[in-house]
């Protein structure tokens, strides 16, 4: 009996020492208090630091579950890279492009100043295919838009240009002057020239993406042409051949028509860029309506997307909630 009690007491003593030792050893209080103190101090400093940071303050005031902020510089860099790659080799087909000029000729006659007739010049490009290259764009951010100025350099090229001169005599004059038309095909060329396209890139957030839609203030630009030197001689010769009494040469000064042609060529032919180049482009950062947690697909609901761009940042904020999830396959 005594032995049993002794044994029990010894076991109890061992367990008791073990307990006391474990309590002493497990007493994390001093270490933990010190850690907690340091933690609290750092937490306070972080709170103060967070309040000083404008981006953090803005995000904390935002109720969106997901915020995507993009620096304006990245959009500018991407735009420049897109222009450099996408608009490096643009083929411009000027075939069938037309330009016209016309005028009325009035002269003093024995019955006073009268309309003698009307002249017209038409330029029709028969075949002329050139290239355009975009230079580095200049961008500036405004509210939700990006103002863009993009230089376009038209590369020089040669082709065939059709010219048509016509003279339509006034009814009274037509008794003595006959109408005429001169058609000819001459060599011409597009000069190397630079144009500045001005427009905006409208930035917006649709269902799940940030989009950039280019809008040009003016889709047309005048394309300067030039006739080959020998072509001018041919034109002058052709007009001079009409400068006879029956063709009203006494009234129609060929230089007059030549001047009209030179002005027409100098002004250039209006080239209108198609709307198809102004398509919206999705920026590479966007939201997804489904995600995976393991192999389970979770459907999300995106709502209340807010978008704003300032001088140096694009800011998109979205309320995101879980709509449904696929059940998991039983292991």
């Amino acid at each position, binding site marked *: 009996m005594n032995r049993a009690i002794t044994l029990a007491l010894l076991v*109890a003593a*061992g*367990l008791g*020492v*073990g307990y006391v*030792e*474990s309590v002493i050893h497990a007493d*994390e209080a001093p270490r*933990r208090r010190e850690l907690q103190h340091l933690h609290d101090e750092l*937490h306070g*400093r*972080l709170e103060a*630091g*967070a309040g000083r*940071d404008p*981006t*953090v303050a803005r*995000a*904390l005031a935002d109720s969106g*579950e*997901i*915020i*995507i*902020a*993009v*620096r304006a510089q*990245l959009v500018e860099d*991407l735009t420049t*890279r897109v222009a450099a*790659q996408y608009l490096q080799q*643009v*083929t411009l087909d*000027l075939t069938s*492009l037309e330009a016209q000029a016309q005028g009325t000729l009035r002269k003093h006659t024995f019955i006073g100043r009268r309309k003698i007739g009307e002249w017209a010049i038409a330029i029709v490009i028969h075949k002329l295919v050139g*290239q355009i290259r975009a230079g580095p764009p200049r961008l500036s951010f405004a509210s939700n838009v990006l103002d863009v100025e993009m230089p376009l350099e038209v*590369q*020089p*090229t040669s082709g065939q240009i059709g010219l048509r001169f016509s003279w339509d005599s006034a009814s009274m004059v037509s008794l003595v002057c006959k109408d005429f038309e001169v058609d000819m095909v001459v060599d011409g060329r597009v000069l190397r020239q630079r144009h500045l396209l001005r427009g905006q890139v409208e930035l917006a957030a649709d269902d799940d993406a940030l989009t950039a839609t280019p809008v040009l203030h003016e889709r047309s630009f005048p394309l300067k042409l030039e006739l080959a030197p020998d072509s001018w001689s041919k034109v002058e010769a052709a007009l001079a051949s009409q400068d006879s009494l029956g063709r009203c040469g006494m009234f129609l000064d060929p230089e007059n028509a030549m001047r009209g042609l030179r002005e027409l060529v100098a002004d250039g032919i209006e*080239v209108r860029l*198609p709307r198809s180049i102004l398509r919206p*482009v*999705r*920026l*590479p*950062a*966007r*939201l997804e*309506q489904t*995600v*995976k*947690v*393991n192999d389970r697909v*979770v459907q999300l609901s995106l709502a209340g997307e807010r978008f704003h761009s300032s001088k140096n940042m694009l800011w998109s904020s979205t309320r*995101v*909630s*879980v709509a*449904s*999830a696929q059940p*998991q396959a039983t*292991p």
Partner: protein
Amino acid sequence: MRTIPLKRVVRWVLLAWVPVLAFLAFRWNARSMVPAVSVEETVLARQTVALQTLVDAADRGALVNFAQVLVVVDQGLVRDLLRAAMPIEALIGGFRVRLESAEASFDDGLALVHLSGKATLIESSVSADLRVYGGLEVVKLDPQSGRLRCEVRVFGVEADRANLIGIDEPLRDLARALSHGGLAALLRFVEVPVRIDDHLSLPAVHSKRLRISAADVPIRAEVAEVKVFRGRLWVALSEQPEVQPESVPSAPLARP
């Protein structure tokens, strides 16, 4: 001098070992039930280290130092994503583990995830409540989907005493297995619904006047920095343009 019989000496020695063995048995048992350092303290220690980094960054004026893209994710969304995927079940270390609830708390440098559930011995009704404390880590942009992908790193596992004697040892094995990569069998990854495309596609234009070839402008984005505070995950992404070979000017179509 009085001699002590050897038999008695042996008995005293044996008796002296009794409290020692009792002490060791207690400590062994206590160690199995209470980790040497509690999960809370582990988390506190990790948070303190992370906080120091955040405070240093804040002092430099670079708390969220993003040069290009910043994605901010609310802890509530991650919690809801995890909950939507519940229950998650897997067989680990002889147990059927079923996680049924999730909490997320993104504060003071750590994206804490607290998963709760039950571990049941296979082919038995013996079970224990299980709590897994982990940290969410934004690993990378998934190369296939382009989505931000997070993994859960286990900080600690707690299992309540089983409803039958004899489950403690297997539970310790389970806790160890979960802490050392076993959680991957349960929760491999969580995606954040933000996608960064690896290219910018521009369609070809074929109009009467203009022809432009389609272009794919490569985007090489990567996770640059992740910070956690004030209930949010702050992920900075950077994009490095591909180094293009110097372009060779194309020959003009015709001599001007």
